[in-house]
């Protein structure tokens, strides 16, 4: 393949005062038109990774190492004004909770205009673009929607508006940070289908962030599994699902409920709780919970080795089970 659209290399993020490492040695690429899913538990650093791509790390947290390159531009090196121009137009994001993500006192049509006006001069075509964007995401009665306030809309409809806002400037990379967790299950499927459809139509690259492996399986090309601020395994969806090599990935997959399971067995769980990234030290972060842990796991940090199709950072990966 050609050069990646987004390439993150050896990224490390930590708090500025009383340094605590939150993300360490994260390396991944997203190619044009490709969708990559990042899965991991709360605190594994997946949201932080996404925010660092947008240059919007929370106050008191900073990139300490590594680079984030978008289209050849080093995002850590450019000014905040240049970064602002990229946000929303080149790299956009659909936010988790549509109930609170829209300005409650601004009409929806106006809010969509805001996105355009922030990046371009508004002209006579702006209103038409707003209408088209709303139509595109399946909002019925666009004229009325533009004159409505967010509280007049349901969660699913608001998430559609959020997606319209994220897509209106045709970004090349869309980040979706668990865009369906706040929605009903039936609405979830519609929203996922909508985003997926838009991605294929626009040949847009995507970064899906989720803690739900089941959600992303059909939506992404490759998966990255994060644990305690590091990538433990990455590869194509097929490889990860059929041949998980890292004990953590294996554990995650075995804890998924399946409809094929007719014996009503108890769901498998991974014993223990996730380690705080800054407390890990010179060892594999998963070692305390790992059923394959060996002495070297507690004394050396395993490196992520492998190809784009499949990489794992483990001294004792699970052999392919045939």
């Amino acid at each position: 393949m050609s050069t990646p659209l987004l390439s993150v290399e050896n990224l490390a993020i930590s708090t500025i005062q009383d340094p605590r490492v939150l993300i360490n040695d994260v390396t991944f690429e997203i190619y044009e038109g490709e969708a990559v899913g990042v899965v991991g538990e709360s605190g594994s650093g997946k949201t932080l990774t996404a925010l660092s791509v947008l240059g919007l790390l929370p106050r008191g947290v900073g990139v300490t190492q590594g680079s984030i390159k978008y289209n050849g531009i080093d995002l850590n090196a450019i000014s905040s004004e240049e970064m602002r121009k990229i946000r929303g137009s080149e790299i956009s994001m659909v936010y988790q909770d549509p109930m609170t993500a829209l300005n409650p006192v601004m009409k929806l049509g106006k809010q969509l205009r805001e996105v355009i006006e922030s990046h371009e001069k508004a002209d006579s075509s702006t209103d038409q673009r707003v209408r088209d964007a709303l139509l595109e995401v399946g909002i019925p009665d666009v004229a009325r929607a533009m004159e409505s306030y967010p509280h007049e809309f349901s969660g699913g409809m608001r998430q559609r508006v959020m997606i319209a806002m994220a897509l209106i400037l045709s970004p090349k990379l869309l980040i979706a940070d668990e865009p369906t967790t706040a929605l009903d299950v039936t609405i979830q499927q519609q929203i996922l289908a909508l985003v997926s459809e838009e991605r294929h139509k626009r040949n847009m690259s995507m970064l899906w962030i989720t803690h739900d492996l089941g959600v992303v399986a059909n939506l992404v090309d490759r998966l990255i599994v994060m644990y305690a601020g590091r990538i433990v395994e990455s590869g194509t969806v097929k490889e990860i699902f059929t041949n998980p090599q890292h004990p953590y990935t294996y554990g995650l997959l075995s804890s998924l409920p399946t409809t094929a399971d007719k014996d009503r067995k108890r769901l498998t769980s991974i014993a223990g709780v996730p380690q705080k990234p800054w407390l890990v030290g010179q060892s594999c972060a998963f070692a305390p919970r790992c059923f394959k842990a060996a002495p070297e796991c507690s004394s050396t940090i395993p490196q992520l080795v492998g190809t784009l199709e499949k990489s794992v950072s483990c001294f004792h990966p699970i052999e392919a089970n045939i």
Partner: protein
Amino acid sequence: MMSRKEGGTKGGVHYYLQSTSGIIGAILVLIMVIGALCSAFGWLPHDPLNQNVDDILKGPSGKYWFGTDQFGRDIFSRTLDGLRRSLTVSIVAVSIAASIGVTFGILGGYLGKWFDMLVTRLSDVIFAFPAILLALAIVSSLGNSWIDTAFSIAIVYTPIFIRVARGPVLAVKEMDYVKVSRILGYSSPRILLKHVLPNVTAPIVVQTALSLSWAILTESGLSFLGLGTQPPDASLGLMVSDAQSLAAFAWWTLVFPSLFITIVVVGLNLVGDGLRDAWDPARRSS
């Protein structure tokens, strides 16, 4: 502050009119404003400065509706003229205080760090002095023209607006929709003006109505003490001050200016209540 139409839900006026105190307050304030406007356009039955030696300390009558004072001046005309002066000073003072206070309050709340420290500490210092005492000190060092009075009252009331604006900004800037505006690449001025400010207007507008009534009291207090408006010009506070010694045998000299002060202050307070009710979603739904 004026983005009510854009900023609020439909029918803001409708909600305001559901509040009885709001309606009464609006009527009282409207009557007072019309009275002040009559004075501004010169539609008064008598010249407020014209002394009439034949009609000294006459009680209320068909000719002099509120009676006359010790110089034979028409108290009705003087009350309206004083009302105009008090309202002008208060409106100018509160406009200055609100624009400066809201600007700094919002910037302080949004930017945080040292700027916020500076703004809050400065307002704490001003807060430490009793309002009337501070206004007295400032006006006596500035001068006695009405604009000086307005300035001194503005300085005294600015910190209140800083606080009223800053508090909600602290909450609003952590809201998801503000985070989303950053994610979508809005510029900081745009976020502040179009996404933060409209969401903090409610307390600011209520505060404006209440501050107007306090400012009228402060202005009256200052002119009562001999600062601010100077004789022979009329001012409500000055008229009350002059009437002190006359009230025992000419009650009308004291009652009418005092009554006007009371009506304006009560009216503005009721308007403040009405605005608060109109904006309060909990009261709205009921």
